């Protein structure tokens, strides 16, 4: 059969196969869904060129919203009433909720390597951007009183602790792992007094680490240790698992500093991915460890609720459906917080504990989603812009997201890497800080006391 004849037969067959009627109700379902869904605003650039150095341009001021003002006024009235009743003295402060302080993020000049990375700081609305240190992966401690980052130590990359504005940096530990990847395995306690970190294969001649390794050369990520930055306390938190194929994910402190959680991972059969065998939680004071989840997963990511009672993590249900799950620190109350038909990752509890932020990978790429946390149900998430990662502002009103490259519809015309501010309801257009190269780590937002 000649190609022309084949094409004619093919086209005739396709025409014959194509349905001529549409199922009843399909159009109504589409229109009904449109009436229930808000449109997403397009991206709006408020700066141009490099955000670094003399060429940088300030991001516009946050536009006050009536609902926000009303909420603040209502909150002020409620607080006043609570003070009057003496209730405020009895209620513990939420360690995550507070006023918005500075933003810090890793900035790199084009073509630069990690070793010329700078740490940039900006005001809570993105203005007054400046370089405050050399280094990468900056993070404020939960109490907002210290800034930690990785920098260029005396002998090797090192962990620094500084004032929030980057002043008075102190090298507190040699970087004790081989990897220089974006997901730092060093975790500062909420008050900045202690560090949880991986035991390592390599003995470093830095300030605190040499005495911790006895020469037995434990495998990388096989142990998690605790070190106080004054050098008075050093001990293992999670000893090496009995199964030699298992390693730990990064340690994650609870906001109250009482617990540390870490995922136990092992390579899958094809050795291309990892499987989470368990999430373990250790009580820092006693060293008592318990395993808290039975939900399978392939990610080390864990987020603590603001009250430190619950952990959220990505996983798959027993029938294979992906979602964000939650379990109590005592291992009870395991439930799904947000279901999804696509792969989900990077859960993060909102500062007030009412919502969960995460990343959904749909057919265009990775996008931000927010679900309301409910006791026994998962509702449809609020879909946000395309982004590689995102964090909450301390007051929960804004999400700061990072995005590399192009390809998403909203980024048409804005093909560079960006950090962007978007309101948590995804109602206003995101405001961008264009970058010459995307950040290696998530930004960090300083919490100020309410």
């Amino acid at each position, binding site marked *: *059969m000649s190609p022309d004849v084949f094409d004619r037969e093919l086209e005739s*067959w396709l025409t014959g196969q194509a349905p001529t009627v549409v*199922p009843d109700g*399909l159009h109504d379902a589409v229109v009904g869904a449109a009436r229930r869904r808000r449109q997403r605003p397009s991206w709006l650039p408020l700066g141009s060129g490099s955000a670094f150095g003399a060429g940088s341009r300030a991001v516009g001021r946050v536009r006050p919203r009536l609902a926000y003002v009303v909420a603040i006024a209502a909150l002020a009235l409620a607080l006043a009433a609570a003070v009057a009743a003496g209730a405020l003295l009895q209620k513990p402060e939420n360690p995550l909720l507070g006023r918005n302080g500075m933003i810090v993020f890793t900035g790199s000049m084009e073509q630069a390597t990690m070793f010329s990375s700078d740490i940039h700081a900006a005001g809570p609305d993105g203005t007054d951007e400046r370089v405050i240190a050399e280094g990468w992966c900056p993070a404020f401690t939960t109490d907002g009183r210290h800034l930690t980052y990785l920098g260029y130590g005396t002998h090797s990359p090192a962990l620094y602790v500084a004032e929030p504005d980057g002043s008075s940096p102190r090298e507190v530990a040699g970087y004790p792992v081989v990897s220089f990847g974006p997901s730092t395995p060093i975790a500062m306690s909420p008050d900045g007094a202690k560090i949880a970190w991986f035991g390592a294969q390599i003995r470093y001649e830095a300030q605190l680490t040499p005495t911790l390794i006895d020469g037995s050369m434990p495998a990388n990520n096989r142990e998690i240790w605790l070190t106080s930055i004054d050098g008075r306390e050093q001990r293992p938190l999670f000893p090496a698992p009995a199964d030699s194929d298992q390693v730990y994910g990064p340690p994650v402190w609870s906001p109250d500093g009482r617990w540390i959680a870490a995922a136990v991972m092992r390579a899958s059969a094809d050795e291309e991915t990892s499987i989470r065998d368990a999430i373990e939680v250790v009580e820092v004071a006693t060293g008592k460890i318990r395993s808290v989840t039975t939900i399978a997963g392939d990610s080390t990511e864990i987020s603590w609720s603001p009250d430190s009672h619950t952990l959220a993590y990505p996983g798959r249900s027993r029938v294979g459906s992906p979602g964000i799950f939650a379990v109590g620190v005592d291992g009870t109350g395991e439930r799904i917080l947000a279901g999804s038909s696509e792969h989900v990752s990077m859960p993060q509890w909102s500062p007030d504990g009412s919502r969960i932020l995460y990343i959904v990978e749909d057919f265009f790429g990775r996008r931000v989603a927010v679900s309301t946390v409910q006791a026994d149900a998962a509702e449809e998430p609020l879909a946000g812009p395309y982004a590689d990662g995102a964090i909450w502002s301390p007051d929960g009103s804004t999400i700061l997201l990072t995005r590399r490259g192009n390809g998403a519809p909203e980024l048409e015309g804005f093909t560079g890497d960006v950090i962007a501010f978007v309101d948590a309801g995804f109602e206003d257009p995101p405001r961008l800080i264009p970058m010459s190269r995307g950040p290696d780590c998530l930004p960090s937002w300083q919490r100020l006391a309410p």
Partner: protein
Amino acid sequence: MSDDLVTRARAGDVDAFATLTAGLMRPLYATAMLILRDADQASDAVQDALVRVWVDLPSLRDVEKFDAWVRRILVHSCYAVARRRRRREVVEIQVQAPSASWSPDPQQSVAVRDEIERGFRRLTPELRAVIVLRHYVGLSTLECADVLGIPEGTVKSRLNAAKTAMRASLAADERTPTLAEQVIP
């Protein structure tokens, strides 16, 4: 497609969106049905795609590209539905006896279409999509490339791969001896 309807829908006019989509339902459903070969999944793909169109419409800067943009979203929605199906279901392979009655008679066209059906079902959704856009929707290879978001050369190579596979299936069946040939030396 009216640019005015697109403009109004982009500004948040749901009634304009309803009018706009009413005229799109049949061609989009037909395209999805051809790619997915399943009525329920085609409905899912069309609904997912049009809701996505509604939500993302403000980001469409050039209303003249609306048709291509919608088709692109639909095709990706079909991929997503097909991907979910592959994850959730054991793949069912329909085993059919080879046609023993094929002969170069007036019924040849019917037999050829049976073989086209069989060959088409063996294609991946990506290859089906390029066949459907080129030979059912009637787009040029350049327009297919725009809709699929791939280079025109890739469109041509996918078309060639798809049709080669289908014609190979057809040729194999042409070479299959009839039952009579198998029994009588």
